[in-house]
């Protein structure tokens, strides 16, 4: 049996309905911004529970743009976690600010107890990351931010549908950035991103900034960039909204099945702590596993496309040489990167595939 990591062929098996919508768009010639994007932004804002949603080029842009508009730039420091995807750090670097990294905690989230020691007079903001779809202890981060007068920006690229104590992403920061990349839970056919915010003025500025700063055809209010969510992708997104609840709920269900199964082999496979109040949407289903590399090989050999997200934390990337963090600086993340494994847990897995994956993991440890 093959248990693929990607589900795109299954999700878009019946592509005609999408192509019909695209055809309609092409015939309308409404290629930039336009009605489909406005519709998408409205639906997205409603879905994630925030007043403003602004479609931009990528999830990375959805982080860069609000930071820039909140005056983060050269000479500033921005704190984030070393346990993340490159884009979080890339976004900070793109503003001109210096990224300052801190260690992660048991749920692979930024460790709030490590933030204060990273604060300097140059620190201007903290970027929290909902890596894997889990959510950091935002109340603790917000307390620190308030005490030190820092802004928060939320990298929520991996947690469409995520909630913390019933509150939507973006509730703690000035803005939150989502990604619509093909492997995200709400996935369009290319790169895409959405910024959400409660701030009216920031939302207005973002809409200007993403579109050259134009207030009319003939005049600009600010020097902007061209970083709009593609209207074709908005068309795809609009049709996908019908699936979002299924996608999220099924992923949560699959993760629950896995979590339950590992209880019998708790000494070999351990999910991270599941904090109450977190609606984890399982963009990635990550666990810690004994003999990780051998397990990965065994699963791959048996047709299960398990992966590692990621084998190296940010501070040990070649790109981080200039930041000068030694090996051992962030022991929790370093240890986790040796133990984590991501299992296929997407919405299109069949029950047989889930059972096969569980059996194969147990078989590897000689426990079935």
């Amino acid at each position, binding site marked *: 049996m093959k248990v693929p990591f990607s589900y795109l062929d299954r999700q878009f098996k019946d592509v005609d309905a999408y192509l019909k919508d695209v055809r309609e768009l092409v015939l309308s010639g409404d290629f930039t911004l336009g009605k489909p994007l406005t519709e998408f932004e409205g639906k997205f804002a409603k879905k994630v529970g925030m007043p403003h949603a602004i479609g931009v080029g990528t999830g990375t842009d959805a982080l860069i743009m609000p930071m820039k508009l909140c005056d983060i730039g050269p000479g500033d420091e921005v704190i984030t976690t070393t346990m993340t995807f490159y884009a979080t750090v890339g976004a900070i670097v793109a503003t001109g600010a210096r990224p300052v990294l801190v260690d992660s905690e048991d749920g692979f989230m930024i460790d709030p107890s490590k933030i204060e020691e990273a604060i300097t007079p140059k620190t201007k903001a903290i970027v929290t990351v909902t890596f894997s779809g889990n959510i950091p202890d935002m109340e603790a981060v917000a307390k620190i931010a308030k005490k030190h007068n820092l802004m928060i920006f939320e990298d929520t690229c991996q947690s469409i549908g995520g909630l913390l104590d019933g509150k939507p992403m973006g509730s703690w920061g000035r803005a939150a950035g989502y990604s619509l990349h093909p492997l995200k839970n709400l996935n369009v056919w290319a790169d895409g991103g959405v910024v959400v915010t409660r701030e009216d003025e920031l939302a207005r500025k973002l809409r200007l900034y993403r579109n050259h700063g134009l207030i009319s055809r003939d005049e600009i209010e600010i020097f902007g960039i061209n970083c709009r969510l*593609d209207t074709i992708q908005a068309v795809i997104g609009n049709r996908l909204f019908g699936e979002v609840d299924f996608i999220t709920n099924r992923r949560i269900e699959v993760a629950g099945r896995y979590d339950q199964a590992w209880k019998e082999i708790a000494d070999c496979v351990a999910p991270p702590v599941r904090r109450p109040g977190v609606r984890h949407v399982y963009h990635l289903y990550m666990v810690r596993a004994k003999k990780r590399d051998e397990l990965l090989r065994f699963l791959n050999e048996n047709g299960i496309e398990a992966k590692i997200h990621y084998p*190296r934390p940010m501070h040990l990337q070649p*790109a981080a040489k200039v930041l000068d963090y030694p090996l051992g600086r962030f022991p929790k993340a370093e240890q986790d990167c040796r133990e984590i494994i991501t299992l296929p847990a997407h919405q299109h897995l069949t029950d047989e595939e889930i059972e096969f994956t569980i059996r194969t993991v147990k078989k590897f440890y000689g426990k079935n």
Partner: protein
Amino acid sequence: MLITNDLALADRVRLLRNHGHPNRDDCVEFSIVSRLDSVQAAMLRVKLRYLPEVTRRRRENADCYREALAGCPGIRLPQERAEEFSVYHTFIIDCERRDELRSHLDKKGIGTVIHYPIPIHLMQVGRKLGFKPGMFPVAERLAGRILSLPIYPQITKDQVLTISKEILAFYS
């Protein structure tokens, strides 16, 4: 689309447009992500076949305007220097009584646009940078005189001739 003869620059751009990661697990330079959509690339791959024809038609329309409007008082037409090969993304004429001409054409059902009516240094953003009226007299003068005529490949020779006739009528 960025084009360059510089191989090292090309490699660097390829890296930087994609998170600065040359493979899945390593990032050698923290960067942005700014890739041309594959969906768009698939369409452009087809459109590319039509590009020579598109260019040919635009150039043909430009020649047609130049011929039909030769000697027309009150206007100056774009000229190609010998070493130049223009693809006429726009066909911008420099004309007297621009706004009147524009509304005359509009009444005849001919759409024109202005690229652009306010030079950047005279917008609020430019003034904030300290620029003042009179600093760039050529651009300021032309901003009140330029008009872009329809030049796209789908308009016919007959339409170009009709537009030209209306312009001639306006100035005669």
